[in-house]
């Protein structure tokens, strides 16, 4: 694995940039001594369980709760209209998503349920078990309504409109035309087409969604212990809809058991839990169980894309065209909306290539299934699979090696800055360097030889490549300009304590990525102390600077830069004091490993604890007029680009058993370019974890609905997540192109693995099956779907 080239400030003693440092904050997790929301117990705490709709679409005729209220331990049974007195509804739209519409959504449904799993009543009891017992006794009389299930039919004349006030089931439409698309298709030697499907799937965080809301009536304050990626966003939303002063809402986010975008939204049942705490004036805990997770955690990726590619005989790509349709459930999710994924697909298709013409259309439609929204690598794996599927389709048809067709068409590494066809600027990408590095890591030629040898023996192995671009370090263009109070800036407050310890409070959050380790490495480097001297505080709106949290691969790029600038400023302030104490010029001094030294000789002059002692306890010894400032805050927002794009490429090597349809993943590779690497191990692990989430979508994961809108595989038994037995070893390599938009130069790495894996696997399967003239384009690629493609099984019955 390559390391970053020297970056001036970091190429100095005491630098932790580019070094693998074991995460300082995980010992508690290794001992089971973390603090997840469900680990917190408060005095007089109650548990809420929701009565959920068994129907995809149904009118609530009546709710009889008499029996439930008599059950042991029950404190309250609350319906939607009652809760609506303390919490206002919301509409999940953003103004910059032009035309996006949605209907008002309540914490608990008022008179109608629009998907199987929507909460229609809340049962609050002293224990979860008692609340479940009582929830069974709530009798809801339903009048079933026709359900809109098939997204393809959602806009048809005969299809019922889910929200009549909206006029139709169209939530959002976007069309984009760049360049002379018709001309390009007319000039092409060949046009190839394919219809791609990406399976609706979900995040399955091992820790379910969790909130413990503690309303303190004397002060009118609400403390929400919540498993979230965005504490300040939650603070804003709870205050807004519960009619509280924002500063009276405190969101505390301790350990989070995985998030992946699932926990970056606010859910109706979470809002309801906070409202119930206000209503009952007691702490109320809601922990989603696994069954309700499957029907309420956001789903994602439910797309059908018709794709076309125009190419010359030599493989030159002239144009891409896509027609996308996605079903998002009955509401656009609050507050980030459910149009972003489709929008990203439009932005990203064709992204790595230098063609000049692109046309895209997407339609985002309502349906009576669970809602969809942003899940890890939003839109990326869809766009990548479509793009790379079309590129490989062209390569197969033209008899060009997949690596070669990419060499001929990827944007040259010296072409930057470059504007992609969706109008988004790319600062500096490294597609060709990444491709060549990947081919070398894979021993691509060796694999091709092995593949050919094995084919003679009837063994079908495939090699798949997938180049991608990745959106990271978003500016205000993502949400802020659309009116959402989701911060794109982030801050870091850093202080020197009397003992020489550095305390950093940051607005970015930790869900296991290693945020706190990353911040500590940067702070230690910037100030000049060892890692052991750094403490990091995250996830508390009372204690951290206002910020956006951790999503869209912004933790290191945004939060890290704020920490760097704060650390440098503190260091300067320390050196000013040290210089006065030593009667030396500040420029001649440096801080290394917690000690002020002479920059040139490295001779130790003053330990930080001595400076701390004087500053905090003997300030009389300092010169008059010198006021040490040992608490410093710096903020950072990325303003140069809408997003700082990164890039990468993945390779998959697998074997298809053409008799059983089973796919065995033999090995997987990813080369990515996230700019400055702060901790190589953490980056590699982000990639690996992301790859496996992508592999899940490619081979296993799908939320299967029947024609009545019932999720038929909503348990861990039936919804197949990737497990260790089937997953391959994953080799990770890096190319480093730091972004000039920050001093740190870090881009994000959280989406890269997920972005490219499904496309690489699809291409590898199709590569394996090429001798049989078979290709597939509908994820997940199941044994049955492969057998059907091979003609060994004709049609699915039952």
């Amino acid at each position, binding site marked *: 694995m390559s390391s970053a080239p020297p970056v001036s400030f970091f190429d100095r003693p005491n630098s932790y940039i580019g070094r693998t440092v074991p995460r300082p904050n995980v010992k508690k997790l290794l001992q089971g001594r973390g603090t997840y929301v469900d680990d917190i117990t408060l005095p007089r705490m109650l548990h809420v369980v929701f009565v959920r709709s068994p129907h995809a679409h149904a009118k609530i005729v009546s709710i009889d709760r008499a029996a439930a209220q008599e059950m042991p331990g029950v404190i309250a049974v609350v319906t939607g209209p009652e809760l609506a007195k303390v919490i206002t509804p919301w509409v999940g739209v953003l103004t910059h998503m032009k035309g996006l519409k949605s209907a008002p959504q309540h914490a608990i449904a008022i008179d109608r349920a629009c998907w199987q799993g929507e909460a229609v009543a809340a049962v609050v009891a002293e224990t979860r078990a008692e609340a479940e017992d009582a929830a069974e006794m709530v009798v809801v009389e339903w009048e079933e309504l026709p359900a809109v299930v098939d997204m393809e039919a959602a806009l048809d004349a005969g299809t019922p409109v889910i929200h009549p006030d909206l006029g139709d089931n169209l939530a959002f439409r976007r069309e984009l035309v760049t360049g002379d698309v018709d001309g390009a298709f007319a000039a092409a030697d060949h046009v190839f087409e394919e219809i791609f499907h990406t399976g609706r799937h979900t995040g399955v965080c091992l820790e379910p969604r969790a909130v413990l809301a503690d309303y303190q009536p004397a002060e009118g304050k609400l403390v929400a212990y919540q498993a979230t990626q965005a504490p300040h966003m939650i603070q804003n939303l709870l205050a807004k809809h519960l009619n509280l002063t924002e500063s009276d809402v405190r969101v505390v986010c301790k*350990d*989070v058991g995985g998030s992946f975008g699932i926990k970056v939204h606010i859910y109706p049942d979470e809002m309801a839990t906070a409202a119930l705490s206000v209503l009952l004036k007691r702490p109320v805990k809601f922990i989603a169980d696994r069954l309700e997770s499957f029907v309420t955690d956001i789903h994602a990726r439910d797309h059908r894309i018709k794709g076309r590619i125009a190419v010359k005989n030599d493989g030159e790509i002239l144009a891409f065209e896509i027609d996308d349709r996605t079903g998002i459930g009955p509401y656009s999710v609050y507050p980030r909306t459910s149009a972003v994924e489709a929008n990203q697909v439009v932005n990203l298709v064709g992204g790595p290539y230098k063609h000049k013409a692109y046309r895209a259309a997407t339609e985002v439609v309502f349906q009576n299934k669970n809602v969809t929204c942003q899940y890890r690598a939003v839109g990326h794996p869809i766009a990548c699979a479509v793009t790379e599927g079309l590129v490989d389709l062209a390569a197969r048809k033209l008899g060009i090696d997949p690596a070669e067709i990419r060499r001929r068409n990827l944007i040259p590494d010296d072409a930057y800055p470059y504007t992609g066809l969706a109008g988004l600027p790319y600062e500096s990408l490294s597609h060709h360097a990444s491709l060549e590095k990947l081919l070398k890591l894979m021993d691509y030629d060796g694999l091709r030889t092995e593949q050919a040898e094995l084919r003679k023996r009837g063994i079908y192995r495939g090699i798949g490549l997938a180049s991608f671009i990745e959106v990271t370090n978003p500016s205000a263009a993502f949400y802020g300009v659309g009116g959402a109070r989701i911060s794109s800036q982030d801050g870091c407050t850093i202080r020197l304590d009397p003992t020489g310890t550095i305390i950093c409070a940051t607005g970015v959050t930790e869900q296991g990525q290693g945020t706190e380790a990353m911040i500590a490495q940067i702070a230690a480097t910037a100030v000049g102390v060892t890692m052991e001297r750094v403490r990091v505080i995250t996830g508390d709106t009372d204690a951290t600077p206002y910020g956006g949290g951790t999503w869209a691969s912004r933790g290191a790029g945004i939060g890290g830069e704020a920490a760097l600038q704060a650390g440098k400023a503190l260091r300067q302030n320390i050196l000013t004091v040290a210089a006065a104490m030593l009667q030396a010029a500040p420029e001649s001094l440096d801080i290394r490993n917690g000690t002020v030294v002479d920059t040139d000789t490295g001779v130790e002059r003053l330990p930080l604890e001595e400076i701390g002692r004087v500053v905090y306890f003997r300030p009389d010894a300092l010169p008059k007029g010198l006021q040490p400032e040992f608490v410093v805050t710096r903020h950072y927002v990325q303003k140069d680009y809408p997003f700082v794009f990164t890039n990468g490429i993945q390779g998959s090597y697998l074997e298809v058993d053409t008799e059983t349809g089973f796919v065995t993943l033999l090995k997987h590779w990813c080369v990515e370019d996230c700019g400055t690497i702060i901790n190589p191990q953490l980056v590699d692990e982000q990639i690996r974890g992301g790859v496996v989430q992508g592999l899940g979508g490619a081979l296993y994961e799908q939320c299967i609905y029947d024609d009545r809108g019932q999720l038929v595989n909503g348990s861990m038994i039936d919804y197949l997540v990737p497990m260790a037995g089937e997953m391959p*070893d994953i080799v990770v390599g890096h190319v480093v192109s730091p972004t000039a938009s920050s001093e740190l130069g870090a881009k994000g790495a959280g989406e890269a693995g997920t972005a490219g894996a499904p496309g690489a696997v699809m291409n590898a399967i199709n590569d394996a099956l090429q001798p049989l003239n078979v290709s597939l384009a509908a994820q997940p690629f199941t044994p049955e779907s492969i057998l059907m493609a091979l003609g060994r099984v004709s049609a699915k019955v039952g």
Partner: protein
Amino acid sequence: MEQHEISVIVNGQKLRRRVSARQHLIDFLRNELSLTGSHLGCEHGVCGACTIQVNGTAVRGCLMLAVQADGAKVETIEGLSDSGAIADLQEAFHQYNALQCGFCTPGMLATAAELVELHPHADREEIRAHISGNYCRCTGYHAIVDAIAFVLETRRNKGGAA
């Protein structure tokens, strides 16, 4: 609610408690004993997050009733940590970053502990098979396999095992 008195040794401590028949062992550990290191990921026996040791073998705590632990020795992640029994696994998980969010980790460690005891010569494929009932959404498993393989090798070298 029907209550039963049980006598159980948890992490070396002998306890007597009254439990309701329907309470599973993890709810007992978490809610009655505040041993919150055992996690509930699915509560229907699939994810492995609740894996603990009962009478020295790994079991799914959500698939065992607390009342069934009467007379048993239960070791949770807290006990395994304090006794030092899995210190080498914990250290290797730390060094290889074989955990991210940490939610699966106690169960993964309990499973790995049994693996290294019973199968000292397991290769990567056997490690993967053994932990294939423990779901991890964060790591992609590679680092977990690395960490367990490292512990196996280290123990083999130390023990001079053939």
